[in-house]
C-alpha cells in the first residue's frame, strides 16, 4: 500500500504548478468484521477501502477534495487529475483564508507495525468453540490500517499497523452482562481465555438478586472504562483552545481559573505508544506529550494551526477539532487489588453509557450505569444493581469528591469503526468518588 501511495502522490505532485501548494492525505484499511450474537455469527465480511484527499492551495486560498480510490494506479490517476482540475476551476469562487497554516518544513517519517500475521478464521473458530456454552454478543475486527501524508515540499510520512480488536459482552439468564475487550497485534489464545474466564467469574456475581437503588448520593468506584466515558465528555471541546475561547467548552470556567480539579489529577495527551500516527493532516509533527491538566490545574489546550492564526498563539499540531486521540491520566495510590476494600460500602461501576451534558457551562454530565455494576458492602460484592441515571459535574467527580485514583492504569483501545477502524486509545486508572448523584 505504501508503494501505491508513493507512486500516486508522485504523479499528482508532478502536476503541481510553481505557484501552487499541494497537500495529500491518505487513509486506507483492509478489515474483517465478524459480528456475533448468541455465541454464533450474525454477519461476517471484509472491507477494502482507500481514501485520498487533495488540498490545493493557491494565493492564500485552499480547496479540498476527498476521493475513494480503487488501488489501480491508472484508473485512480485519471480520477485524481480530474479532481485537481476541478479544484483549479473552483478556486476563483473562494475567498482567501486568513487562518491557513501548513508545514513548509520537510519532516518525513515512517512507522510500521505490520509484521504480525492474524489468522481470522482460526481465531474465530477458537472463540466459537470456547464460548459455545456462554451467551456472548460482540464484534471482532482485524486487519491493516494505513495513513499517509505527502506535500509539494517533498515531505512524506507513513504509518501502518496490523491489529485485532475483539469487543464482547457476556450475558447471564437475568439479562445482566459483563463487557470485555481483547485487542492487540498478536492473538494469544491463553490470554483470551484468561480474560473470558475472569468475565465468567464476575458474571456469577450478577446471578445474585438485583438490588434496586433509589435516587440519592452514592460512594462509587469508576473502572478505567467508566472513567473513560467521563473523559470523553471532557474531550468534547474541553481541551480545545478555540472552544475555550468562544465559551463552548465544558471546561471554560477552569481555563478562566474559576474551577479546578483535585490535585491528584494530571491529564496528558500522550502519543508515545505509537498507536496513532504522529503527523498532522497539514504536515506538522505532533509533540510526544502535551500536559493538559497538571495537578488539578488547567495547563494548556490542544491548539490547531487554524486556532494559532485566529488567536495569535503557537499551535501544538492539534487536529482541526482539537480533541485528544491518546489521553493518559496519571495513576494514584489506591492499590488495584484492594479496590473493593477501599470502596468499602458503595457501588462498583464497570461501565457507564450514553453520557451527555445536562448543563455544559458547569460541566454537568448525565448518563447511565450499564454493564457490570454491583453494590459492595463492607468490601464484598453483594449483587447487581438496577440501571441508574446519574447527573453530576466533572468538578465534583474529579475535584472535590474524588477520593482517589488507583495505582494501575488500563490501556483502552477504541473499538469504534464509524468511517474506519479507530486508532484512538486511552490509558487510565480507576477512581473512587464520593457523593456521586444518582437521579433516576
Amino acid at each position, binding site marked *: 500500500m505504501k508503494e501505491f501511495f508513493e507512486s500516486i502522490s508522485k504523479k499528482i505532485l508532478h502536476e503541481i504548478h510553481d505557484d501552487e501548494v499541494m497537500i495529500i492525505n491518505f487513509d486506507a484499511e483492509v478489515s474483517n468484521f465478524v459480528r456475533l*450474537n448468541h455465541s454464533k455469527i450474525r454477519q461476517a*465480511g471484509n472491507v477494502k477501502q482507500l481514501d485520498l484527499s487533495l488540498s490545493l492551495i493557491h494565493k492564500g486560498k485552499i*480547496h*479540498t477534495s476527498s*476521493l475513494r*480510490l480503487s488501488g489501480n494506479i491508472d484508473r485512480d490517476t485519471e480520477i485524481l487529475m480530474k479532481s485537481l482540475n476541478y479544484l483549479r476551476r473552483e478556486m476563483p469562487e473562494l475567498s482567501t483564508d486568513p487562518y491557513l497554516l501548513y508545514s513548509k518544513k520537510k519532516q518525513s517519517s515512517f512507522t510500521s507495525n505490520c509484521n504480525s500475521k492474524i489468522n481470522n478464521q482460526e481465531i474465530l473458530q477458537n472463540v466459537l468453540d470456547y464460548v459455545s456454552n456462554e451467551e456472548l454478543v460482540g464484534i471482532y475486527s482485524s486487519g491493516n490500517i494505513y495513513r499517509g501524508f505527502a506535500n509539494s515540499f517533498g515531505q512524506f510520512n507513513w504509518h501502518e499497523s496490523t491489529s485485532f480488536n475483539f469487543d464482547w459482552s457476556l450475558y447471564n439468564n437475568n439479562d445482566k452482562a459483563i463487557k470485555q475487550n481483547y485487542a492487540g497485534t498478536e492473538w494469544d489464545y491463553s490470554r483470551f481465555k484468561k480474560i473470558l474466564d475472569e468475565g465468567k467469574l464476575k458474571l456469577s456475581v450478577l446471578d445474585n438478586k438485583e438490588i434496586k437503588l433509589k435516587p440519592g448520593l452514592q460512594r462509587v468506584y469508576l473502572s478505567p472504562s467508566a472513567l473513560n466515558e467521563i473523559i470523553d465528555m471532557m474531550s468534547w471541546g474541553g481541551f480545545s483552545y478555540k472552544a475555550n475561547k468562544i465559551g463552548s467548552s465544558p471546561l471554560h470556567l477552569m481555563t478562566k481559573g474559576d474551577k479546578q480539579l483535585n490535585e491528584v489529577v494530571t491529564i496528558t495527551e500522550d502519543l508515545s505508544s505509537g498507536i496513532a500516527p504522529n503527523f498532522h493532516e497539514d504536515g506538522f509533527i505532533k509533540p510526544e506529550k502535551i500536559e493538559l491538566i497538571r495537578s488539578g490545574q488547567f495547563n494548556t489546550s490542544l491548539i490547531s494551526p487554524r486556532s494559532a492564526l485566529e488567536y495569535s498563539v503557537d499551535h501544538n499540531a492539534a487536529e482541526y477539532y482539537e480533541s485528544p486521540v491518546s489521553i493518559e491520566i496519571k495513576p494514584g495510590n489506591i492499590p488495584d487489588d484492594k479496590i473493593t476494600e477501599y470502596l468499602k460500602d458503595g457501588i462498583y461501576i464497570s461501565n457507564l453509557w*450514553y453520557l451527555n451534558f445536562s*448543563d455544559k*457551562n458547569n460541566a454537568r454530565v*448525565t448518563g447511565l450505569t450499564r454493564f457490570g455494576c454491583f453494590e459492595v458492602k463492607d468490601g464484598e460484592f453483594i449483587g447487581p444493581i438496577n440501571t441508574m441515571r446519574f447527573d453530576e459535574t466533572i468538578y465534583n467527580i474529579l475535584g472535590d469528591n474524588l477520593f482517589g485514583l488507583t495505582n494501575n492504569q488500563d490501556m483502552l483501545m477504541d473499538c469504534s469503526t464509524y468511517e474506519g477502524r479507530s486508532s484512538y486509545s486511552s490509558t487510565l486508572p480507576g477512581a473512587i468518588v464520593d457523593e456521586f448523584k444518582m437521579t433516576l
Partner: protein
Amino acid sequence: MKEDFINQVKQLLPDVDYCSFRFVNQFVNTISVTRNIVEPVTVSEDDGIMVSIINQGGIGYGSSSDLTMDGIKSAINEAIEWSKFTKNKTTFLPDYKRIKQVQGNYFTKEETNWMQVSTKDKIDYLRNLNKILKSKSTISNWGASLRYKKIETLFIDTNDSHFRQRISFLLPQVVVSAAHKKEIQTRTYGGHAHARQVGYDFLDTINLNQKAAELSEESIQLAKSPNCPDKNMKTLIAPDQMILQLHESIGHPLELDRILGDERNYAGSSFVTLDMFGEYQYGSKCLNVTFNPTLESQLATYNYDDDGTEASKEYLIKDGLLVRPIGGHISGQRTGLDYVACSRASNWNRPPIDRMGNINIEPGNYSEKDMISSIDDGILLETNNSWSIDDKRNKFQFSCEKGTLIQNGELKGIVKNPSYRGVTENFWHNLTMIGNKDSQKILGTSNCGKGEPNQTMFVGHSTPMCLFDNIEVFGGL
C-alpha cells in the same frame, strides 16, 4: 452508472444460492462560514460495492472501493470465503427463496439542483447570515453552514432484481452563542433536526435570515434569563425536541434487531419484547406512530431498502397500541412478525441492519393556541441540545436550548437550561393533546449511530407539538 458497465458486472454474479451487488456512490459538499471567515470548502466523492452472499448454509459479504472487474471479483471471493466459514455457525440463516424480485427506481425531487448554484453564491448567502447573527457585541460565537449529500444506489441480484435510487438532502445549519458575565447560551437552527430531501430552492421558503435574527436575539435573552425551575408540570414539547423524544423512546426500542439482541454489546437492547406486539398499550389513545417512507421531501423517503424490500407506510403504534416493530425482511423471517422496508446500510462498506426510516407521529386535532390556553402552570420546550437514554430505552433525560414558562394559558418569560427526565413506559401515557397539521414539522437527523461495525444513518421524523402531563422538569446549576 452506465448500462454497459451494468451488463458487464451482471455477468459476474456468481453461481451461488443468492447474491446481490449493491453499488453506492456518495457525493458530499460542505460550505461553512464561521465568525465571518469562510472555512476550507470540502468536496468528497465515494464509490464502492457491497457483495452479499447466501450459499450452502453460510453467509458472507465482501466490499471494496475497487470497482475494476478484478476488484469486484476480489470482493466476490471474500464474500464466498466468509460464507464457507460461517456454514452452520450463524445465528440465523435467511431463507433466500423468500427474497422477492424488485425492479424500479426513486429520485429525490430537486427543483433547483445544488450544482446549479455557484460556490460563491452559497458563500455569499452564508456570509450574510453571519452578519445577521453577529447582531450585538455580546454575541460570542456564530456561524452558518450548508451540507449537501447525494447518495446513488444501484442494486442487482441473482433474482434478476434491479433498482436505482438517488437520494439527495440538504442540511442548513445556524449557530449563535451569547455571553453574559460567565454564562454562555446557544441557539441553533438545524443542528440535529432540519435535514430534508429538497433542492437548493428550499432555502427561499424557510427565511433563514429572519430565523437567524430571532435566534441571535434569543441567545442574548437566554444568557440573562433565570434557570428553569425544578418542578413537575405540564410540558408542551415543540417538534424540534419531539423528534429526539420520538427517535430515542419509540424509534430505537421498536427496532427488531435490538429486541433480538444483536445490539446488546453496543447500542443496547429494548424494554420491548416480542410478545408485546398487538398486546401492549405503549401510550395514551391519541398516540399514532407510523413508518412512512412515502412523505415527499422527508429525509428517509425511498422506494426500496438496501436489502431490496419495497417500501410502504405502516402503523407501528395505533391508538396507543403497539402493533408492529421496525424490522426488515430478515428480522421478519427471524421472528415471524410483519416487517417493513427498514434494512439499511450507511454506505457500500457496511451490511444492512434494522434502522429507522421516517418514523412519524400522526397529527391530532389541536391548534398550538388550544394547547397553550389549556395550561395553568407549565412550560414550552424548544430545540434539543442534549439527549441520553438507557440501553433498554427506558430512563431518559433530555435538555433543550429554550424554555418558556406558561401560566394561566399564556406564554410568560423564557428560562435557560431546561431539562426533563422520565421513563418511556410511563411517559407516553401522559400524552394528553397532539397538535394538528399546522404545528407539524417535517424534520430529520443525519447522524443516528448504531451497529457493529458502526454505521451513521439519516432518519426522518415528522411530528406536531405534543402536550404531556406531570413531567419532571429541572434547570441548570
